[in-house]
């Protein structure tokens, strides 16, 4: 399972995205607002999930802002951190 696939699965299962399957989540769909409809507190949950499941810490807004745009950007961030 790729990081993107795992992220999509986590989003559906852990953040309770109703009426959505992992396959239906587009790589570039915005995570917040109009896209997947996550809110600001979901961002906190997402940061915790990423740390728990990938061992990658999003330390602050400088890192979080570009990473938390979409599944694709978050997966790229995780891959980059894991490669170091």
């Amino acid at each position, binding site marked *: 399972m790729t990081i993107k696939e795992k992220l999509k699965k986590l989003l559906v299962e852990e953040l309770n995205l109703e009426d959505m399957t992992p396959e239906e989540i587009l790589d570039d769909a915005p995570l917040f607002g109009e896209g997947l409809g996550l*809110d*600001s507190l979901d961002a*906190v949950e997402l*940061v915790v999930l990423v740390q728990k499941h990938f061992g990658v810490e999003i330390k602050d807004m400088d890192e979080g802002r570009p990473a938390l745009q979409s599944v694709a950007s978050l997966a790229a961030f995780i891959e980059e951190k894991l490669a170091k």
Partner: protein
Amino acid sequence: MSKPEGEEQKGAWSSRSIGSGWQHRIFYLLIRLGGRRAAYLLLYFVVLYYVLLRPDQRRKSEYYLRRRFPGDGPMGRLAKSYRMSLQLGKVLVDRAVVGILGPEEVTVDLGGQEELLSLLGEGKGLVLMTAHVGCWQVAMSALGFLSVPVSLLMQREEGDLDRHYFEHAGLDSPYRIIDPRGFLGGTMEMLGVLKKGEVLSVMGDRMLGDDHNGVAVTFLGSPILIPYSAFKLASATGAPIAVLLSWKSGPRSYRLKLFRVIRVAPDLGRRAEAFAPYAQEFSAVLEEFTRDHPFQFFNFYDMWQTSPPRAGAGSAPNTKGA
């Protein structure tokens, strides 16, 4: 078509300062010329005017007073409205006095200093939860002993005329301000503060801006909505929450007390209800405060006019730090 209840509530509340700029400047001038007493003297009459002749303003205090003193008749409420408004006025004057004449004009007695240092020493950051009671700026000004940066979640509105004490003195803000209208409501900034082991100060008793993350708790006998973002952040980071409230204890003195430490369990998930017991702990502290200092509770709007909580969440007014 009528507005949704939450929207009506937002419309009913304005954080803008009472009085115009020149009226504020008269008080500042009096402080410079005659000190605190001169400003207090004018204040007695100004508050009397608002309480007697401006029922729209008086009503703002009555939402709370009817709950806190349910046995009072109209005259009793009128007298208490005067006392409550006068206390707020004195706090605002004191804040200006500190900025204009210097911090030595007010003494601050802080209880719980050692415990706060111990909590910070846990290395998980510290959430300082305060409320619109007493003078929260006093709390902020007394945190220098913590020796770490303090960030404050605060929203200022256009039209706010009140100045903070450091603005009167022409100083930079002693704390970093996180704007809840920023990226993701400022949550990533707040998370970053705690991850660095620093102090995050939040007002726990009002919803800010467009925050819809409220949870219902019982306060003075009926439900109100309070934000649970701070509880969620504490759960995610393991940071303890220190409930720190201040009150005016004398003409020139304030007391600051660590009322309670709230520890939020990890992995509580997304549901607002999971945070309700912790939010209720905070509400219990507020009730305790209103028992001891009934006229230093400064939420001048109908806190109890809440939309029915949807799965523990709901809307609340657009507010800021007083």
